[in-house]
């Protein structure tokens, strides 16, 4: 995959994740900005569980709660962590 395609792919996944936050995380779409903290968006632990369940259903990736996820400060960081896991999983899938 060339760099441009990878960037586009990444952007597309990010957009899908923002959609998931709006629908399953029950976050007001107009309030979604990259630097918004999960706290300011009113995201609770149950919303995170719902989003991560949808990520698993949509992308087939199990994202456990690890240190990196816990330490994300804002929505952008959270989404980037999940995108990393999805891309990581796809790469390991391609190798197999």
């Amino acid at each position, binding site marked *: 995959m060339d760099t441009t395609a990878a960037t586009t792919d990444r952007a597309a996944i990010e957009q899908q994740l923002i959609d998931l936050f709006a629908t399953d995380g029950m976050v007001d779409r107009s309030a979604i900005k990259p630097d918004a903290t999960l706290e300011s968006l009113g995201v609770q632990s149950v919303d*995170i*569980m719902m989003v*991560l*369940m949808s990520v698993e259903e949509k992308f087939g990736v*199990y994202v*456990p*709660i*690890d*240190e990196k996820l*816990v330490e994300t400060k804002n929505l952008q960081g959270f989404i980037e962590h999940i995108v990393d896991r999805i891309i990581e999983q796809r790469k390991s899938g391609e190798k197999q």
Partner: protein
Amino acid sequence: MGAVSAAGIGVDALWTAARTGHSAVDKFQLPRDGKTTIKIAAQVKDFDPARYMSATQINLTDRFTQFAIVAADEAMQQAGFSKDSRLENLRLGDRAATIIGTGIGGYTSLDNMMFNFLVSNERLHPMTIPRVMSNAAASHLSMRYGCQGPAFAVSSACSSANQAIGIGAQLVQSGIVDIAIVGGSEASIATTYLRAWELLRVLTPDFCRPFSGGRNGMTIGEGAGVLVLENAETAEARGATPLAEIAGFGTSSDANDLVRPDPHGAAAAMRKAIEGSGLSPDAIDYVNAHGTGTIMNDIVESEALKTILGPRLKDVPVSSTKPIHGHAIGASAALELIITINAMREGIVPPTINWLEPDPKCDLDPVPNEARKQPIRTAMSNSFAFGGINAAIVVTQPS
């Protein structure tokens, strides 16, 4: 003491695995597989109830009650109750209590029966309710040994067994009963149960590594642990040899969040247990931690321990044996107290296995990967549950 765990049947199998750091976590086997992402658990394999009880009893019981019966028989034998007659012929009377903790009771039966009834259109077993009810284990033990005193289940998720043991000790101490058969049992490794835990994102897809950098969750286990509690005079009069003394019990509620642990509540339970023992926190030589291996539990437990142990935090070994026997929820605290008592008796601190590197937020001595010889006079075993329920028990060498 008696135990059933993924390490095998009996206290020896459990203690040997804990002492040598041999994990019983493996790929699980289930009747309806394929619905979960996580494929590992600490499952009791090749358990054949027919070796331990009658066909009638098997028909009446869920796996969690069967585990409790096997563990209780071992505990009663060790306590010397089978010297003069068969255990089933015992009639201990109204001064004997049976208190068995369980997180969710007969879940295996429920999972199977619901599937068979709703999906496969098979008939529902007429004894579904008596099998599944959370007090089934306590009731079966009361019938088995003729215990006509207080009999009940304690259901407080991961703290169930510590509360059952602690309340049993208080009943004995206050003179309400002479003997208490206490502990915890759990047998809920079923597809829906594992999937539900998975959705909480607290299960590790690979290795449970408590207090370690790079940890990412816990592994579900199952089993039962049972202890026989008596006051020293009664035990002596029977000619029984005490293994340990339950010196203190403390329990508290966070009254805060259903799933997020709270260091204040955890510390409160430990403080009460130590105060109840009449000892100082300086007397604690070993802590068997709740240590689930989730990010949050291990940070919160470390913080709570710091408020209790102060500058001694780095000097007191604190290990979690959950990577070995799994997190057996309502049974976990009983399995861990049994390990703690053996650690004390043999002067061996069991290790926290799968440990990779320090986590600055867990600034304690987790006894990484290797057991350690060290005299233990007093030890504490912790458990913290969903629902914000905390329970700690302090044990000492018998006086």
